[in-house]
């Protein structure tokens, strides 16, 4: 179904991984926003968003990244994106996100960029 959306959270070392599944639109984005906000409020600013199971994103979902990226970076962290499917990547691409966000091919490479102190 093109209606479902869910978020699963896990730790990988000192990095927090948020795995998005399904369809992220204006209806489901508030849940993603709340999840990111919760991490930042709890002092966890090193975030990797695993997009391997994300099937769709509209500007409401993209807006969540835009709202919090500066805050995460100011807190010494980052919001990195990982494993974006090609059909979803094209949407990020249209808006020039690849120049502004750290987008990695896999969750592992995204996590290791934090370990390397690059975040």
């Amino acid at each position, binding site marked *: 179904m*093109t209606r479902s959306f869910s978020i699963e959270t896990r730790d990988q070392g000192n990095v927090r991984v948020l795995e998005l599944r399904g369809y992220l639109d204006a209806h489901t984005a508030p849940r993603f926003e709340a999840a990111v906000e919760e991490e930042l409020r709890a002092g966890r600013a090193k975030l990797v968003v695993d997009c391997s199971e994300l099937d*769709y994103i509209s500007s409401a979902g993209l*807006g969540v990244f*835009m709202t919090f990226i*500066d805050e995460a970076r100011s807190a010494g962290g980052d919001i990195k994106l990982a494993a974006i499917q090609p059909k979803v990547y*094209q*949407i990020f691409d249209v*808006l*020039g996100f690849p120049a*502004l966000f750290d987008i990695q091919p896999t969750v592992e490479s995204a996590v290791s960029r934090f370990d390397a102190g690059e975040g």
Partner: protein
Amino acid sequence: MASYERTFCLQVPSSTENLALIREFVSAIGEQAGFGETETVQLALAVDEACTNVIEHAYQNEATHEVTVRVTVDEEEITFEVIDKGRGFDPTAEPVLPVEELIRQRRSGGLGLRLIRSIMDDVQYRIVPGQMNELRMVKKRRPAGGVNPAPGAPR
């Protein structure tokens, strides 16, 4: 190709709950009209953005109104009309800020119209006072090769 024109129409309550249904509607028509997967996703995205704007801005998140999407398919192009009876606006007055600037201002919005304009070949907005507002978006079919014909090329 035989000469034909087909029209489709979907009307739903003005709730973001119905965006998924709107995307399925557009995807089914895009697929049927022979657009590829990538283009079909983009068409669904543009209409999603237009309907999201109607729900959030024209109706200010009141779910008791209606959003209408009319689609016309012919040999040349596919046309979407997103219609509401809420508050109109002047799209030319909306500032188009760079994404960097939006981020600096911690703004989450301002991307919808940009996405619509970059996906569609023609975008027109009109207010019919006391009756309706209409966002009309046109996407041309690409010839099999996938690129635009050169300007001035014979058709």
